[in-house]
């Protein structure tokens, strides 16, 4: 395998992504964990660029490293966050889970290892956003509209759930 620019870019992005994930598992403060995961999200956006999905890379930066991380940080700061988490999980349980996940990874890796797909030429990189728009509005119009309903339901649902219900509080007191 030659060390081309694409290969080097992929290796460095993948390294940063995996390091972010490992830091998520090993850090003790929850805020640090979330910040470590931002590195993973940004490098996944870089992976999208390598896979000629520039629009998705922009969406990934906006939604994941922007919105979702901020929501998670709010969730941490609105709840109790000063206790460093762990370690009551139990070492045996962790060991069993680790072995189980490792077995899962090995089983899937056997399937990946021998995969040989014939590569076909594609033109995904030319006018990527325009292609996505045309496809979205010609073939996927109904799922697109249903997604708007889903987002509305999530918005109203989260407002209703997180709202402080004063009547119940008044009844309790």
């Amino acid at each position, binding site marked *: 395998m030659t060390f081309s620019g694409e290969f080097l870019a*992929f290796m460095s992005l993948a390294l940063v992504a995996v390091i972010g994930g490992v830091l998520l598992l090993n850090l003790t403060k929850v805020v640090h964990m979330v910040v470590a995961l931002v590195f*993973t999200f940004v490098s996944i956006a870089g992976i999208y660029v390598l896979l000629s999905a520039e629009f998705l890379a922009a969406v990934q930066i906006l939604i994941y490293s922007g919105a979702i991380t901020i*929501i998670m940080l709010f969730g941490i700061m609105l709840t109790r966050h000063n206790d460093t988490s762990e370690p009551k999980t139990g070492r045996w*349980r962790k060991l069993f889970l680790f072995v189980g*996940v490792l077995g899962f990874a090995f089983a899937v890796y056997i399937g990946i290892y021998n995969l040989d797909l014939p590569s076909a030429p594609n033109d*995904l990189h030319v006018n990527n956003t325009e292609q996505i728009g045309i496809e979205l509005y010609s073939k996927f119009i109904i799922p697109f509209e249903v997604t708007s309903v*889903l*987002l509305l339901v999530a918005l109203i649902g989260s407002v209703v*759930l997180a709202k402080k219900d004063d009547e119940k509080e008044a009844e309790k007191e």
Partner: protein
Amino acid sequence: MSTVPVQAYLALALILFCIGLYGALTKRNTVIVLISIELMLNAVNINLVAFSKYGITPSITGQIFTLFVIAVAAAEVAVGIAILISLYRNKKSVNIDEMDAMKH
């Protein structure tokens, strides 16, 4: 045509998925469990985009699916954080092993 084979992308997605799975199963803080689930969804997205470029019939559909997955994931995070906050108001705790009742 390309110097990075499709197996490399799939292996990266597998590693990230396994990290997310292990984190979701072992961590006690609910926020960390939610964000581990986000990591698993991201790994699936990498798979979709990789197959949309290097699959047998390359097409833009994989990227469209990824957009839908991102939208659903964002909605899920919003509802999850709302549930977490209302649970915290009742239980004064964010540890996932103390959330074992649907009514208080």
